[in-house]
């Protein structure tokens, strides 16, 4: 499946917006970017490696040569790209149940957005505005974003333990080793292929 590489799914979506609403959405993003607590749910969900929203004004599509025709559009467009773990259904369900308020603030300015609750019309809308990925690459295909964060915690703890235990005798080392294991035990899960889903 071209949208999926390893454990990560590449989603693309594009929605039309009336130009006067674009400025309201820019204000929403400005606030979201400057008030960290508003991003807590997004961070705590912890299944998105990278995501971005891009507003393209109706006259803002790249124009690279003299003979390229200018776009003649009435709407501005909101592009959304996400790199997430899990299946499409899990992603939309989680968005709907955990991030519904935030998502409504972002997409309510798009034409015919039905709201993120209830989830069925929301899924129908996303399916309509989504377009497929032709090529997708990830440097760590077998690692979810939780795996990445766990791996960095283990690495940091290991180097701390190595430093602290350098001058210990075997008995002291064993005791410190047990403490190290207690500290990292929740982060020692192995990575690998993702289960197949839809």
């Amino acid at each position, binding site marked *: 499946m071209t949208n999926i590489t390893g454990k990560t799914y*590449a989603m*693309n979506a*594009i*929605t*039309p917006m009336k130009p006067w609403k674009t400025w309201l959405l820019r204000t929403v993003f400005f606030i*979201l970017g400057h008030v960290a607590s508003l991003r807590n749910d997004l961070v705590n969900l912890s299944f*998105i*490696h*990278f*995501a971005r929203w*891009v*507003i393209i004004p109706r006259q803002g599509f*790249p124009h*690279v*040569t003299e003979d*390229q*025709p*200018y776009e003649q*559009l*009435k*709407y501005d467009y909101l*592009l959304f*790209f996400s*790199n997430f773990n899990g299946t499409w259904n899990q992603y939309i369900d989680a968005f709907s149940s955990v991030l519904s308020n935030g998502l409504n603030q972002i997409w309510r300015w798009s*034409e*015919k957005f039905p709201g993120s609750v209830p989830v069925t019309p929301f899924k129908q809308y996303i399916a309509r505005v989504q*377009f497929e*990925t*032709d*090529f*997708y*690459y*990830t*440097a*760590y*295909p*077998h*690692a979810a974003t939780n*795996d*990445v*964060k*766990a*791996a*960095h915690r*283990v*690495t940091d703890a290991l180097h701390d333990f*190595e430093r602290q*235990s350098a001058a*210990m005798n*075997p*008995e002291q*080392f*064993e005791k410190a080793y047990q403490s190290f*294991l207690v500290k*990292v035990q929740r*982060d*020692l*899960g*192995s*990575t690998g292929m993702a289960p197949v889903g839809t």
Partner: protein
Amino acid sequence: MPNQSGSVYGLTLLSPIIGDPHAPVSHDLQLRLILGSMPRDHESPFAKVDSTHMCRLTVMNDVIYVGMPACEEHLQLQYLVFESNFDGDLETYLRRMAQQIPETVDAVWSHCLGYPGVINPDAFVAYMKKCQVTTTFYFADVNDKTVGQTLTALQTQSAVGAFVERNAGVHGAPLQQAFLKLMSDLREAPAPQPGSGREDANLCAVAGAGASSIHE
């Protein structure tokens, strides 16, 4: 800076695809054929540009009509979308693309209007910047680690897991010696290859070597 989160840069390019009605095979279809056959694992061209965390290439056929009462409208041209998440700054990344994967870049972007080729890196960088659209809001869950640091961390995590399993029930001096061997092996282990998903194999080999010393 909206294109950046911590040390990670989020690049979005929209390059207009040549619309030639006389081409025997349309440029968008040629592009899809190329993109569909490009390796996605450690042999992917983007594994060579090893500051790339994740990237995608896709053809955007048109804008999407969401139904009445919205207006139906269409793009004049199709666009090639390049979305990339990488370490460092844009200029360096684009020049690395031109230097390290010139054949791939030429094969893909030669189907786009006004593409100058990588033969002149300055013209190439200027063209790609012309195709860039600014990100309005960018989110990176881990934004302070490079690709290399993450691959090494995954390797370390896997090695530690295997080490713990192999050394259950080992005590005192043999445990300490095995740990020292593990750390030494980790330092000497080859860097994991981007895109391979084989951090586990390397790690287990490392952990196996570390643990074996206590059984000798």
